[in-house]
């Protein structure tokens, strides 16, 4: 048993942690539903007298409000890009991880390190030639280009994490399936895939979050609502001088909802995936 003063200290610390964790984001949520005049009074009122959901309504339904419309289109772009990246990276990277985990072939080790190396390269080291190349090919400001660029770090990430999941299941399943006459792809699909499904979900979630949070490539390679992501839209409006902070807050809350939902609903999977990816021998 712990002593009483120590217990007290623990609870005080727990309270601080809870407050510091929640307060900043809570303030963002409050700002998004407060009237502008309540946000700009001194002394600041923490709980507004009246709530307004107009900004949310504007984002979803009002094409005439420039900022709201930009946020809506950018959210749709982010969704399209992040889901496409996730699906492609899981299939392509998952297959590669399976091969690396199951088969022995020349340069296997070197290949693993080469993928890890690409994952660690700072984006800034490769963007200048890519920018010149894509602008020559007239591929700037396109969602497809952004998907390709995101894949360069999401695929290595998927390979790195999935490999540890494949390593953790016994090869005997594969061998038994082969004896029963399954082809390699059938074995993968009917035997291995169902077993590693939790791993695939965890990896997929982390891949989606990586793509959703990506900023540097989007900033440089997109310019219009055709392909701009929500992070770029928020950064752009929050960088202006006369800013509607309530609207920024609303965009911010909406942009946080997908990752927050994922993080809270899939917490168990997520933690396992993160630890598998980070701590590997």
């Amino acid at each position: 048993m712990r002593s009483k003063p120590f217990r007290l200290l623990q609870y005080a610390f727990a309270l601080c942690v809870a407050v510091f964790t929640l307060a900043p984001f809570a303030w963002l949520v409050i700002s998004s539903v407060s009237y502008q005049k309540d946000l700009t009074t001194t002394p600041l009122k923490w709980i507004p007298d009246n709530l307004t959901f107009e900004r949310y309504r504007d984002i979803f339904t009002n094409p005439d409000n420039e900022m709201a419309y930009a946020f809506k289109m950018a959210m749709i772009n982010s969704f399209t890009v992040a889901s496409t990246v996730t699906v492609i990276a899981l299939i392509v990277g998952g297959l590669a991880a399976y091969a690396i985990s199951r088969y022995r072939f020349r340069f296997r080790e070197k290949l693993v390190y080469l993928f890890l190396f690409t994952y660690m390269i700072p984006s800034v080291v490769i963007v200048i030639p890519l920018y010149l190349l894509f602008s020559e090919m007239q591929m700037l400001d396109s969602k497809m280009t952004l998907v390709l660029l995101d894949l360069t770090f999401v695929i290595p990430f998927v390979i790195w994490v999935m490999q540890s999941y494949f390593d953790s299941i016994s090869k005997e399943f594969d061998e038994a399936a082969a004896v029963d006459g399954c082809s390699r792809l059938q074995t993968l699909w009917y035997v291995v895939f169902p077993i590693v499904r939790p791993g695939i979900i965890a990896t997929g979630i982390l891949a989606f979050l990586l793509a959703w949070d990506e900023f540097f490539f989007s900033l440089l390679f997109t310019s219009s609502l055709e392909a701009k992501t929500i992070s770029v839209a928020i950064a752009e409006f929050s960088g202006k001088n006369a800013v509607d902070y309530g609207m920024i807050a609303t965009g911010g809350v909406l942009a946080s909802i997908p990752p927050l939902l994922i993080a809270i609903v899939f917490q168990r999977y997520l933690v396992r995936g993160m630890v598998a990816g980070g701590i590997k021998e």
Partner: protein
Amino acid sequence: MKRKLSDAQFAWLIIAPSVVIVFGIVLYPLFETFLYSLKDLDLSAGSLGDYVWLHNYLEILSDGDFWASAGRTAYFAAVSISLELILGTLIALLLNEEIKGKTFLRSIIIIPWAVPTIVNGAMWKWIYHSEYGALNALLTQLHLIDHYHSWLNSPWMAMNMVIIADVWKMTPLVTIFLLASLQLVNKSVYEAAMVDGAGMIRRFFTLTLPYLKPTLLVIIVMRTMETFKVFDIIYAITQGGPANGTMVLTYQAYLKAFSNLQYSQGATISYLIGMMIALLTYGYVKMLKRGEAA
């Protein structure tokens, strides 16, 4: 069933798409950037790329601005990582105890980490606002300050404010990693130590800390690589200002290349960033290996 492909052929076949996409897009520009760093490609001066070999490197390495940015980057990395490790360890230890509300705390702790980096930046920028910001309001109402401050107006203060924003977002990651290791701890060793009369602080330093060391090192490596290329949160809060107070290396490379169109200078700084990260990682990994051998 007849198998036409050998195992190795089949393996390469299903690895091929990854190799084509990843190396196809990364290796060419990686090499090309290196060539740029050896040329004088500078659209602002109208020069289109004659080889100048190491001239860019010598010029940048003798440039005070570069070293100032490197110093700020190192400060950002060192302070954020230390704070995240200390807070993360304390919170992980707390969540590993039997306290009421543990489940609740564990489920909210992940929230900051899930908030996208740019949203996090915009949120803190709003909190730090000099006229309407929540921080000014809070500190004034608690009578801790007597007038509103412009938190982002002085170079050094701005850097620290950005660090707070980064620590808020990244501490949960450290906590989650450490908590995962703590839950695998063999409890009986602790009970034995308690029977032997080892106090709490002593138990922490002789049992817990050595046990957590590998995980801590992994976190330090990961976070060093991330903080040395920090860009997004700086872009969202201060854009390198005020008076270059938050001008970190990646931001400097970005400005040189995409705002001044000095491609070669940008490329050179990028390569220097890459080399620093590689050196640091190499150093840590060596430390890690030595730790394991001991």
